[in-house]
């Protein structure tokens, strides 16, 4: 049965020449799991908002969206609230009340459900989502993953038939994101809820989706089942291949006629069956010699309050000039704290931070300030003025730079990072990727020697990540050093010079990405999990493809 039908939908925002959604036609069957993917700004969010009448933005809409054969615009408000659920990207702003239980009750209260019926439904839903333990908690005390789970539960308590999700996992760490997606799978398989999700992170979604829709500039480029998708995406631009799961990227890279693999298991079988695999070891290119020490953390101990727990426990770390150093680790392992200590925002109670072998302390810190630049997890916090350019000039002014020199500097940096067209915009009008670029530019304006980045790839699409990586690689070669903490294993494997794992407040292993990841079992890239028993030391899709091609295709007779 068809639950949703788009018939030649076009949508234009006011004061915009181009269409955000352009001649879009699609039919969604009841119980289907549909993934919508595409670059940032391709129109996926707009499309989802058009389905939910209350969220439809102002603008000009052509064509009709039918929900169960009825135009969306004619749905009764309580039907729309009940049957179509919506979960957004930002876990915080969609929460309405201060308590978890009240958040669950909110939707039912709006529908005037009597208290006794509410009690049953709330009990049921908190059991299903496992939120009993924090039922009475303040929403502000929850982690991002828990908040997003509450948002999902609050949408599901209305017992919707159609669930719309707009990049729900983009602000979650990989573990929380995988948990979230597995719950979506459960909702789809066990309850038959129709799901339409717009997402960048496709690794876990491909195996469970029924259909993948690729959008570009508001149009459908590909509309296919996951296996067929891998085939069709070959004909498109190379950059689209980047955002696909590793299994498909490898499949596309080797150009062999076979069914497209979707999971790690299938991809491993695929590589085993189709290639000779006589050469078993991947030899990484020569490492360049170590540079001078930029920043050194020596036996650093830190806790936030006198009688709280230690967050950093004798942490040691050396950052050299000319390198991009990625520190990985789970939430709560002390990653961000380590960065704060390195940035001089927090002082260790025992141990020392050295900048170019000079001790940093409270007194001399200000003189080092401009040499260390710090990018917070939320780039929004970097900006306090109404336009990006205003903000840049204001900062340079307070740092005591003459205005003509400031202008020159802003021009060069903006050119280098590629944000010339964004300078006049308000920071809140930019997408996350654009904002991240501007934040990086703001750091570079300080002409720092050391960049400290907190989760710079969070919420970015694969194409933007590539841009970011290129900027970072550019910076580090200019006699600077980049230290970033991240959850993004694939990014670290592809771009880092060195990687380290932080656990329980200390660094427990470090090395080149090839050594580091091929020694890990769980904490490693999908490409490495695919190839670990076939090729030793290959950790990125490119490396696996290179090994496959080197080995050559297996003949039918072998």
């Amino acid at each position: 049965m068809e639950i949703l039908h788009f018939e030649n939908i076009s949508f234009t925002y006011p004061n915009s020449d181009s269409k955000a959604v352009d001649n879009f036609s699609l039919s969604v069957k009841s119980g289907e799991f549909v993934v919508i993917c595409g670059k940032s700004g391709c129109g996926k969010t707009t499309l989802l908002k058009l389905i939910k009448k209350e969220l439809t933005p102002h603008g000009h809409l052509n064509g009709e969206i039918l929900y169960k054969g009825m135009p969306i615009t004619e749905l009764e408000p309580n039907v729309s609230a009940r049957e179509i659920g919506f979960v957004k990207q930002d876990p915080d702003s969609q929460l309405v009340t201060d308590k978890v239980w009240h958040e669950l009750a909110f939707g039912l209260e709006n529908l005037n459900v009597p208290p006794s019926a509410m009690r049953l439904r709330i009990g049921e839903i908190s059991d299903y989502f496992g939120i009993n333990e924090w039922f009475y908690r303040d929403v502000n005390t929850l982690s991002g993953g828990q908040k997003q789970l509450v948002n999902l539960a609050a949408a599901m308590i209305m017992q919707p038939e159609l669930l719309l999700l707009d990049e729900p996992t983009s602000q979650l760490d990989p573990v929380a994101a995988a948990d979230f997606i597995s719950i979506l799978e459960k909702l789809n398989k066990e309850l038959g809820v129709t799901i339409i999700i717009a997402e960048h992170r496709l690794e876990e979604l491909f195996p469970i989706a029924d259909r993948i829709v690729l959008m570009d500039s508001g149009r459908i480029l590909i509309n296919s089942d996951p296996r067929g998708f891998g085939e069709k995406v070959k004909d498109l631009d190379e950059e689209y291949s980047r955002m696909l799961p590793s299994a498909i990227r490898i499949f596309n890279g080797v150009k062999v006629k076979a069914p497209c693999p979707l999971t790690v298991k299938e991809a491993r079988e695929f590589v085993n069956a189709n290639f000779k695999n006589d050469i078993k070891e991947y030899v990484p290119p020569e490492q360049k010699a170590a540079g001078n020490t930029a920043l050194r953390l020596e036996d650093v101990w830190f806790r936030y309050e006198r009688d709280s727990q230690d967050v950093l426990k004798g942490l040691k770390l050396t950052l050299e000039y000319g390198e991009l150093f990625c520190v990985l680790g789970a939430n709560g392992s002390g990653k961000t704290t380590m960065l704060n200590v390195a940035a001089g925002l927090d002082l260790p109670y025992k141990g020392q931070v050295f900048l170019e072998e000079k001790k940093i302390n409270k007194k001399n810190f200000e003189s080092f300030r401009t040499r260390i630049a710090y990018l917070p997890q939320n780039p929004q916090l970097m900006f306090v003025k109404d336009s990006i350019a205003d903000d840049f000039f204001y900062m340079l002014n307070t740092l005591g730079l003459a205005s003509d020199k400031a202008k020159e500097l802003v021009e060069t940096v903006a050119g280098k990072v590629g944000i010339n067209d964004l300078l006049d915009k308000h920071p809140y009008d930019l997408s996350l990727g654009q904002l991240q670029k501007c934040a990086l530019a703001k750091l570079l304006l300080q002409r720092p020697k050391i960049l400290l980045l907190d989760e710079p790839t969070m919420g970015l699409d694969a194409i933007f990540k590539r841009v970011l990586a290129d900027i970072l690689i550019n910076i580090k070669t200019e006699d600077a050093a980049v230290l970033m903490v991240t959850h993004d294993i694939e990014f670290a494997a592809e771009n880092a010079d060195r990687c380290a794992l932080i656990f329980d407040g200390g660094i427990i292993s470090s090395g080149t990405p090839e050594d580091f990841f091929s020694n890990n079992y769980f904490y490693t890239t999908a490409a490495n999990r695919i190839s670990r028993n076939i090729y030793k030391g290959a950790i990125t899709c490119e490396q696996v493809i290179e090994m496959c091609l080197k080995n050559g295709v297996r003949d039918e007779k072998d």
Partner: protein
Amino acid sequence: MREFAKLNPAVQLVYFLSVILVVMFDKNPVILLISVLFGLLICLRINSRVFLKDLPILAAILFISTISNPFFSQNGATTLLFINDMPVTLESLVYGLSVGVMLISVISWFKIFSFTMTSDKIMYLFGRYFPSLALTVSMIFKFIPQIIRQAENTKRVQQALGQFSAKSIMQKLKGSINIFSIVLTWSLENALDTAASMKARGYGQKNRSSFMLYRFTALDLITLLIVLILDVVLFLGIALGKTKFDYYPIISTVDTTGLALAVYISFGVLALLPFYLDFKESLKWKYYILKI
């Protein structure tokens, strides 16, 4: 306090109103002693570390209130000494002491009140009469910590950018104004998002119900009845002036006859009630465990 806190919020509210009203308006030393003793004991049980931390402050209040009263009041028959021709009387010292005890007692009971009566319970009590007000309050409770956190984080990041390194106060002030204005923008954006989320979940339709977290059980009824009976004795006694106590010009003696005694006992039972509920419950559990 654990068992008491599980009672229906309405019972808890009546209880706290009774205790705090008596403590605030009755200066009888027996009442004061009972209230301060149990008030402090319950505070100690709730969080002994916070209690010990607060103890010096409470002692300071007591001390200052006692020695400062003679400066304001020279009443009283028994002059102890003269400071700069100002008589310091025993009565005025004792009155100061009693005011100090009263303050400590009121502070303790309000602490217990705010610990037990969480926002959930307040919402439960008033939410059904003012549903939209209740929702607003709940949204404010969620929103304010968020704004504070956003302001703190912005300040920290701006600090890391060297925006507060300048020594000049003007620069620092400018920096703070910037943070204020951007956090304002942020909260408006955030509020719009929240409003959209509310609409998407069906807010704004004619009738709204309110979810009730608490039920009214037999134990609630019994406890409420006990509190009300004690209240009748208490307020009757107080209204009839049985607990009236004067500090000036001479300290009167404590009335321990008839109704006055009943008032003291009633108040003692009232103050003991939370302890009794806890004690009863733990005994019950010990008994159940012994049966295994």
